[in-house]
């Protein structure tokens, strides 16, 4: 087994580490960096609980090797809040009570964040499509969709209807 020295920018901080070739990115994030927001759910790239942003794209970190992230920038759910203030998408999830057991929430937040970066005013269909790879076993999808809609309105400065 080969070992590799990797350098990854995580939530704007540079980290260096030696990793085994077979270490998965989600294990690097959780165990090496101690950032336990990204969850391990299905382990087979179905459930999306491990979703992070890698070089600007939402990916499932259970199906990427840690060594593949060498030289790249990573954003995890821990990096969404800035200076003690929640990111609007986090506020949206709070406001709309979009969290039940919470297990899928970090992945849902990251997928929603990625969507809003690309499409600030997504349609309901676009929201449902983007979270189609994120499973909520509590089946709380309606409130999650509402949270993303709320966030989109808030970020665009429009009035928010209750």
């Amino acid at each position, binding site marked *: 087994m080969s070992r590799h020295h990797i350098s990854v920018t995580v939530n704007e901080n540079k980290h260096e580490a030696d990793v085994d070739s077979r270490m998965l990115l989600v294990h690097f994030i959780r165990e090496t960096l101690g950032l336990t927001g990204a969850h391990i759910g299905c382990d087979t*790239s179905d459930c999306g609980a491990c979703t992070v942003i890698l070089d600007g*794209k939402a990916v499932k970190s259970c199906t*990427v090797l840690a060594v593949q992230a060498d030289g790249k920038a990573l954003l995890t759910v821990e990096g969404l809040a800035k200076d003690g203030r929640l990111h609007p998408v986090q506020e949206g999830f709070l406001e709309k009570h979009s969290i039940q057991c919470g297990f899928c929430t970090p992945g849902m937040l990251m997928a929603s964040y990625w969507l809003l970066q690309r499409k600030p005013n997504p349609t309901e269909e676009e929201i449902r499509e983007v979270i*189609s*790879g994120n499973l909520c076993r509590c089946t709380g999808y309606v409130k999650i969709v509402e949270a993303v809609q709320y966030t989109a309105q808030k970020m665009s400065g429009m009035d928010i209807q209750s």
Partner: protein
Amino acid sequence: MIPASFDYVAPRNLDEGIRFLEEHGDDAKVLAGGHSLIPLMRLRLATPKYLLDINRIPGLEYIRESDHHLHIGALTRYADVEDSLLIQSRYSALSDVAGHIADPLVRNMGTVGGNICHSDPANDLPATMLALKATMVAVGPGGERVISAEEFFVDTFETALKPTEILREVHIPRTRVGTGSAYMKLESRAGDLAVVGVAVRLTLDAQGTCESVGLGLTAVGPKVIQPKAAEAALIGKKLSDDEIRQSASLAAQEAQPTSDLRGTAEYKREMVRTLAARALRRAVERARGET
């Protein structure tokens, strides 16, 4: 679950990669998007000694048209196919497929070349490549080699690629006036593999007669199936609904489905008939410029 031990190498160009494969090709797997390979390695169904990561090789991600072909670099992500205006406007079957492979997050990583080289008959791109009469450009120690889609897909998880070769590019004949294509997929839940899928591309002449057609069937055989009798039944025809239904019935007969969790063999055969008719109708509409 964690993959079994392996050595990881990331060449900076194709030559370096080929040289590595010349030495270790039998013990190595090429890593593209990894969304089929890494799960297989985690389940220990694949235990390669070496993983050759081609993601650090520049110049393998592109979509462009030349005089005769659409060229897709092997490392092009599904998301880029989905977002490509060229593909949306002129290669409808590919556009249909790209938006229905797994889910948007998987599509950010998964690649056209990886999907094809995995040769899983349940994946959507192999059947689409058959219907589009694509050719694969492989690079090996002796230079480049062009392989037709029909020759390329040998069996389940087996392609015509040699252990020393890397897929570089896919060529798809250019869309002409009168060409229409479509991909129809039946999935039991969002993002799942197909229960059944049907790809079609056809070209009508100025009189509306079918002058060429390609069909491909997903998930109904040990490899993707090209239903040749169903194709032959369409050539020289005006493609009335009766003729379309007849061809779809032939496609259903040529399918080789087996019963599994996604459905019985009879059900899948019936779904081939239904989807083939729908895909043909949609391709005809598109060829006539109706949609």
